């Protein structure tokens, strides 16, 4: 199952709720303002780094780039993908849950 989160973890509870319900082995794609969750060194980084033991986390490259977040600033283990990768994730997973 693919989860998407499009909100900043600083402003919204969406990422926390997603992580509380995502099963081991799920994919999580951070999009839009959700990509701020991929930044290392924030007060949420430890929680997200820990979640990497459970789920594979991706961040949408075009959204990182728009916001001026370079890949060297990401939490180690988070993968960057494009819209084509988003489509691929939505294909290989049997369904998609958007944590709006």
């Amino acid at each position, binding site marked *: 199952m693919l989860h998407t989160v499009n909100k*900043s973890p600083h402003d919204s509870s969406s990422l926390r709720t997603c992580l509380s319900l995502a099963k081991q082995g799920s994919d999580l794609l951070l999009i839009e303002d959700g990509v701020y969750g991929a930044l290392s060194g924030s*007060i949420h980084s430890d929680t997200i780094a820990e979640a990497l033991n459970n789920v594979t986390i991706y961040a949408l*490259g075009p959204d990182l780039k*728009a916001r001026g977040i370079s890949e060297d600033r990401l939490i180690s283990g988070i993968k960057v993908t494009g819209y084509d990768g988003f489509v691929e994730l939505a294909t290989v997973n049997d369904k998609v849950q958007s944590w709006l």
Partner: protein
Amino acid sequence: MSETKKFMYVNRHAPYGTVYALEGLEVVLIGAAFEQEVSMAFIGDGVFQLKQGQDTVDSDMKNFSPTYRALGDYEVNRLYVERESLEERGLNEDDLMPLTWEDEDDDWAEKKSIHIVSRAQLSDLLEAQDVILNF
């Protein structure tokens, strides 16, 4: 028209995910023509508006970050950024665009527009305003 008022534009939204930052900036530019005492506050995710290196070429949105660099020319040179908001997000002053203005009362010396302030200082600044507009 009445005397000069203190206007503060409070920015609490990240750019691009929503339109508030972009349309808020349009208000600041128009407001600059009214010769009021103007400042901007960046709180919470609003600090992300000033992040260096924004590039929207892959997402086909309008990159409005260059507009912040123009603010100094409009004499909008008091941009207050909450230090605690930066720290909570893993950012520091070097992550922000280097915004400046030229002080005509000081031989056009180039000065910083961004002022990193503590939560307590920001609280004082809010209290000192006449009009607060939120974006």
